[in-house]
């Protein structure tokens, strides 16, 4: 028995020497360090088609008997899982004496508000993009201000994504 053990150890030692392998191993490692700077992008798209890209066009007849409503939409692309919020400011405006209000919703179908509701929080980033709509409503039965017809004007609103 002792003879067999001596032979086995001898054969193993010979094999190790022949193959150049030694019993100590060297496994060098290195790290790939990556710093990701998260980003969000806003891409404005327009509806309806007759408007300038991103713009909302309202045609209002003084004292009209129905609310005037139009909308625009945009997409937000963010780093996956990145928390963010979206706001449109100001949430209301006045052009030619006609007051209007904006409503921001997390959908491609617009919704409308009488007083203005244009802030969304607690959103989660998606590289595929997420659609948002801004509905603009001018309430009915407003007189407006128009000293020299025809009268038109505009007001600029800003979409801000905070992340």
């Amino acid at each position, binding site marked *: 028995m002792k003879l067999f053990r001596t032979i086995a150890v001898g054969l193993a030692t010979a094999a190790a020497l022949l193959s150049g392998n030694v019993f100590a191993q060297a496994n060098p490692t290195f790290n790939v360090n990556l710093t990701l700077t*998260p*980003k*969000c*992008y*806003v*891409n*404005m798209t327009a509806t309806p088609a007759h*408007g*300038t890209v*991103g*713009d*909302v*066009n*309202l*045609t*209002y*007849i*003084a*004292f009209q008997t129905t609310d005037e409503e139009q909308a*625009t939409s*945009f997409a*937000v692309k963010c780093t996956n899982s990145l928390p963010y919020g979206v706001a449109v400011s100001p949430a209301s*405006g006045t*052009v*030619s004496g*006609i007051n*209007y209000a*904006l409503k921001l919703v997390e959908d491609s179908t617009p919704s409308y508000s009488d007083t203005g509701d244009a802030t969304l929080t607690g959103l989660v980033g998606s590289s595929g993009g997420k659609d948002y709509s*801004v509905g*603009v409503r*001018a309430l009915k039965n407003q*007189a*407006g201000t*128009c000293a020299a*017809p*025809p*009268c*038109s*004007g*505009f*007001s*600029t*609103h*800003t*979409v*801000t*994504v*905070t*992340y």
Partner: protein
Amino acid sequence: MRGMTRLIALLLAALTTQAAWAATASSQFTVRLTLSNGGKCTGETLSQPAAAVVQVVCGSTGPFVHIEPPPSVAPAAFIGRTFRYPQPTEGFVPMTTESGISVGTPVATVTEFRVVGDSVRDNQFELLISF
């Protein structure tokens, strides 16, 4: 005490990390509004005593009077029309009607309306137009 210090340190670290990530992306759009037909005026002082809705439309062809019954009155009992004429003395040939038919440039406006109903048969009838 040591645990509290560690907790405060963690909170400060979290706040610092949050502040470091704060960033914004923005874009702008414009809301354009056009008052169609220049403007339209509803004369409440005329409408209330007349029990009718009297409107003056200030369009590109000049003032245009529109008279319609109030919502509580049946349309058949109150019929109003408005015409414009080239010259007030040339007779009553309508040039522009409410429906938009135009023959020439109007220089005057005459408004007529007919009231049908038993309630006004024996009563006085008044019409006031003011520009």
